[in-house]
């Protein structure tokens, strides 16, 4: 099982009856697996804040609930979490948060343990799939015992790493009866001040619990070196330093002070090995322990070798075969509808404020189609702010995906309307949450189990929020898209353009591939500048289309001024391009 599959299993075994989240690599598969179990109702929420509220409501209603997100998602949900820490829980409430050291698929690197400290909620850090299952079960117990939401923090290598797991069976948990308790659940200042005293007492109780809990354990080996570690770093320490004694912390917030002091007293030297922030290092030092300075990176992932070399092992020799290998950046798929839209945006020389999704890849050459990308929903506010700056002569356009628009674009659009903006917002509606692997969302009208859901009416919603016009274009039709883009960026009202065509990977029955007529190709390179992986040049500079990769979207046909791109196969319709 992967760590994510194991968390889902653990939540099910713990008797959770509600699972809710927003997809985000590397956390996505937790909910996708939880939905397969009987007895758990699962939903994708439009964003992490809503997900945390839904899970909180389920907890208030007396059942165990799991809410899932990636690290940046917890920023969105933090508003909820920090106060849920005061209210506490009725049914067990567990946050599954997956961090991404090294930023394999994220816009920043952050250490969720900091949110645990800030919100004063416990953080559990599994080191492999087995622990991902066990700690998730434990998290529900801790949540109810200490009246607190609990964070289970994974990292990419735990989420997506696979290992052997011994699974258990489900424990059915009785719903705790709902009893109105406004002093606990209505966090106005007078009540919150009272609850804060309880939180302080809880911190102490949790620290004492951590010193005896099974999730924190001292492994006694050589007494010359004792290493304090947690999460995936534990595995690297075991491989790199097999002789060292290890204090393996599963519960790192709050810190089990007594356990650490005892461990440190039994070894000659104490070192801390942890990924990302020096969370443990600084707090262990604050206990008065002389922690050895180890030369470990403070950003990115660790590895067995990095740990070994930090403790003095000689570097391994490594082979480098060829200098200057071309990189292989992720790219828009063949037939991706976003490609057509970015091509048109390039033609109007738009300044494009971007967002989080597949379309972020439109930033890369040759499309060079994006000027900013910060976080979910930021494109719309950023476009408005750029207009306020008044320094840009070219049209400023916000692009945002369908799922992202529902996540946090709606309020941005509402603000643009309120602020009398005449800007342009493009919703790239490819009928799915594509980058994380095709999840349902309120725009595409698909539930987490694949069944039909009510889809929101984008046009009606945007008009209701105050857009002056909403027009839908087919981004595969380059001329039509370009015309609408020209008109709406020039218009003196707030415009929403819905660029609507399904993700190329959703289409099972593709058009026939195209080919290049060598006689007609002038080597002008127009088609190559679409950045389609199916199009390359031969040694003479002529365009070549790989028929195995081409899905027949026809964008290149429209770009070629010499009619040199032609259909192959009998059913190919050249007339309309598509």
């Amino acid at each position, binding site marked *: 099982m992967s760590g994510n599959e194991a968390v889902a299993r653990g939540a099910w075994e713990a008797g959770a009856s509600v699972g809710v989240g927003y997809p985000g690599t590397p956390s996505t598969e937790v909910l996708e697996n939880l939905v397969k179990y009987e007895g758990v109702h699962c939903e994708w929420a439009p964003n992490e804040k809503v997900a945390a509220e839904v899970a909180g409501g389920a907890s208030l209603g007396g059942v165990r609930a799991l809410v899932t997100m990636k690290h940046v998602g917890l920023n969105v949900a933090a508003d909820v979490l920090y106060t849920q820490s005061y209210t506490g829980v009725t049914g067990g409430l567990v946050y599954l948060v997956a961090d991404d050291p090294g930023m394999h*698929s994220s816009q920043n690197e952050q250490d969720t343990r900091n949110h645990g400290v800030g919100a004063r909620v416990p953080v559990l850090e599994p080191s492999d799939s087995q622990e991902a299952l066990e700690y998730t079960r434990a998290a529900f117990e801790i949540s109810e015992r200490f009246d607190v939401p609990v964070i289970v923090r994974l990292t990419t290598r735990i989420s997506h790493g696979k*290992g052997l797991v011994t699974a258990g069976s489900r424990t059915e948990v009785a719903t705790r009866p709902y009893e109105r308790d406004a002093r606990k659940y209505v966090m106005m200042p007078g009540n919150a001040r009272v609850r804060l005293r309880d939180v302080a007492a809880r911190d102490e109780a949790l620290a004492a619990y951590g010193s005896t809990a099974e999730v924190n354990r001292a492994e006694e080996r050589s007494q010359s070196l004792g290493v304090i570690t947690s999460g995936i770093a534990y595995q690297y320490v075991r491989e790199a330093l097999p002789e060292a004694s290890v204090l393996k912390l599963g519960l790192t917030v709050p810190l089990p002070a007594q356990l650490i002091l005892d461990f440190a007293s039994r070894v000659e030297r104490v070192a801390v090995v942890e990924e990302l922030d020096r969370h443990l290092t600084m707090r262990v030092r604050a206990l008065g322990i002389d922690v050895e300075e180890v030369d470990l990176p403070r950003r990115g992932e660790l590895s067995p*070798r990095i740990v070994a070399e930090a403790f003095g092992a000689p570097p391994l020799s490594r082979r480098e075969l060829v200098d200057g*290998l*071309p990189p292989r950046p992720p790219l828009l798929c063949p037939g991706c509808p976003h490609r057509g839209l970015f091509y048109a945006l390039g033609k109007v020389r738009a300044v494009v404020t971007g967002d989080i999704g597949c379309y972020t890849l439109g930033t890369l050459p040759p499309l060079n189609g994006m000027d900013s990308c910060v976080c979910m929903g930021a494109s719309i506010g950023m476009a408005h702010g750029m207009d306020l700056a008044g320094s840009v002569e070219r049209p400023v356009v916000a692009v945002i995906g369908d799922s992202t628009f529902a996540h946090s674009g709606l309020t941005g659009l509402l603000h643009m309307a309120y602020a009398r903006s005449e800007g342009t917002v493009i919703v790239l509606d490819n009928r799915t949450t594509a980058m994380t692997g095709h999840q349902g969302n309120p725009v595409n009208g698909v539930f987490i189990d694949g069944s039909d859901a009510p889809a929101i009416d984008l046009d009606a919603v945007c008009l209701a929020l105050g857009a002056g016009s909403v027009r839908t274009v087919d981004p595969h039709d380059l001329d039509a898209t370009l015309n609408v883009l020209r008109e709406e960026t020039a218009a003196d009202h707030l415009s929403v353009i819905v660029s609507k065509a399904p993700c190329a990977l959703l289409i099972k029955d593709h058009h026939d591939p195209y080919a290049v007529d060598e006689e007609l190709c002038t080597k002008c390179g127009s088609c190559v500048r679409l950045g389609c992986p199916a199009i390359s040049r031969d040694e003479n500079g002529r365009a070549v289309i790989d028929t195995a990769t081409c899905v027949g979207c026809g964008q290149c046909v429209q770009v070629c001024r010499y009619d040199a791109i032609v259909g192959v196969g009998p059913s190919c319709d050249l007339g309309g391009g598509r």
Partner: protein
Amino acid sequence: MMMTTVVLAGVGGQGTILAGDVLAKVAVAEGMDVKLSEVHGMAQRGGSVETFVRFGQTVFSPVVDPGMADHLIAFEMTEAARTLTYLRPGGTLVVNRRTVDSLPVLIGDMPAPEGLEEALVGEGAIFLDAEALACEAGSPRSANIVLMGAASYALPFEVPTWERVISDRVPPKTVEANLRAFHLGRDACAEGVCSL
């Protein structure tokens, strides 16, 4: 028993992740502790994909460092060159004899790397035409299983275990073709096309 580390390297869409899954399940079926690590996300297709499979009595780290892999199975020559750094001296290198040009090459920003095959031969690479063998097996998409067949020659697992796991793991309609693909890959080694 010593721990063995295998790195699979290819391009998104080539089936490296399924191949890694098959290998991991074969090792589990033969009673070993196994860890598998892969990185995915970002684009669905076309990026570099690395899968690490480690097996033995007890496996700690799922992550592999340069110079630590016993076997490198490359689904494409550029990725073979890129990931060669993982292979320890004396490790086995199985390479699918094809290139998939990356976007900087396709759009003419960078030249296609030259002399890859010769350079890889110099590193002791064993070459296969996995796509051709896959077509011969009756399923062009089973090139990944052809490569696992070739790799199986260097790995300490029984053929029936491979056959059972492949049958369980691939789509039911393609079981026969994938089993043929596995044996064509394995036979290619036996016949000296690649000699491990």
